[in-house]
């Protein structure tokens, strides 16, 4: 046992004596190179962020530069250590070709995220802008300022709405009104408000108003129009505000949810005889059940 340890120590001593200087040089190159790489990448990132607006493209360029510089540092360290430079380059080229070939073959079968950095997407119940993606998770900034890290596995298993693919969205505003006599006036004012808004588009479809249904004692009117994705939310708020103020001005009564409450006031039945029928002159017959409907449905 002691002999084995002594032999190992002797072997290590020999290696250090023979290649110690090269190993130290290689280590220095590696450590200094990696520190320099960090510094240089920070500078390059600052430059790219200023000059390239497309985040996805900027990240791709950064990754490529990082990998190239990393390969140069490792190769320099290996050459210093005494490895044959031709073999190293062959190995690098072989590795790169193998990776490209595997990616090309497997790409159709690899699950990919259905968005890119900078897209506005809805994942499950989360709506926001994608800030970054890694192999494990995706960083999203929601519109109320929260940064959410979503596991990629969840994204791949959940439904995702990507608002980037289509430039416009259909805006939908449903308004319940009380009286049938107001249908035409409501339709006209809703359509006019949509048409006169500069943000409302005429394609893929013109603004239109439908009488949707008659439920719970109210007529439901539906306004539909198309607006650009980026202007969707504010346009929706503005149009709703204009419709409501205009309806108020024109005395069109909005309908709220109607709720019927039936109150039953009954006294115990007083049976006469044994026939099971109430006595016509009893208190129960004189106090029939009554109903009341709450009607506080005006907004």
């Amino acid at each position: 046992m002691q002999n084995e340890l002594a032999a190992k120590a002797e072997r290590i001593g020999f290696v250090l004596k023979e290649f110690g200087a090269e190993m130290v040089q290689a280590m220095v190159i590696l450590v200094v190179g990696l520190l320099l790489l960090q510094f240089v990448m920070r500078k390059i990132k600052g430059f790219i962020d200023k000059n390239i607006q497309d985040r996805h493209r900027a990240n791709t360029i950064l990754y490529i530069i990082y990998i190239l510089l990393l390969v140069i540092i490792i190769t320099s360290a290996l050459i210093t250590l005494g490895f044959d430079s031709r073999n190293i380059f062959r190995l690098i080229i072989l590795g790169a070709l193998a990776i490209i070939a595997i990616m090309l073959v497997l790409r159709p079968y690899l699950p990919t995220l259905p968005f890119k950095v900078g897209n506005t997407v809805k994942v499950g119940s989360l709506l926001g802008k994608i800030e970054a993606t890694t192999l494990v998770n995706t960083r999203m900034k929601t519109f109320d300022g929260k940064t959410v890290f979503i596991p990629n596995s969840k994204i791949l298993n959940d439904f995702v709405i990507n608002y980037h693919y289509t430039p416009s969205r259909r805006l939908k505003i449903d308004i319940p009104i009380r009286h049938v006599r107001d249908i035409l006036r409501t339709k006209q004012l809703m359509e006019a408000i949509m048409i006169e808004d500069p943000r409302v588009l005429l394609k893929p479809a013109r603004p239109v108003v439908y009488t949707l249904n008659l439920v719970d004692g109210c007529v439901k009117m539906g306004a539909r129009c198309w607006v650009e994705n980026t202007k969707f939310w504010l346009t929706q708020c503005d149009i709703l505000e204009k419709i409501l103020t205009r309806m108020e001005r024109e005395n069109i009564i909005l309908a709220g949810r109607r709720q019927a409450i039936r109150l039953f006031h009954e006294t115990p039945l007083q049976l006469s005889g044994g026939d099971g029928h109430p006595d016509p002159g009893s208190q129960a017959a004189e106090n029939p059940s009554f109903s009341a409907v709450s009607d506080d449905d005006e907004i």
Partner: protein
Amino acid sequence: MKITDAIKIIDDNWITKPKGFRVCMQRREGSEWVIDYTPDEKAAPLDSDVTTWRTAWKLSVSTPLRDGAPQEGDLVNIFVVDQDNNPVDYYATGEKETFNPCPV
């Protein structure tokens, strides 16, 4: 008449779609009133009349009318105009509206 021709007549004659909105006002500069706009005429107009009217109202409450001689920076007769400088009806009342009205 083709449906496209009918739609063209409607588009041209029923409701015109403004291209944008600006707040128009008179601002005291030295000893005279000058007409000013926000956003200024070199910048793109706002695409929301609701936002533009809101801006007009905020400007009016930030520079209320004062008794006595007008002072530098006072803003009066604040209203909203379209891209051709035509006054726009206030959507809340359906009529022409001017904040901080003042004969100048």
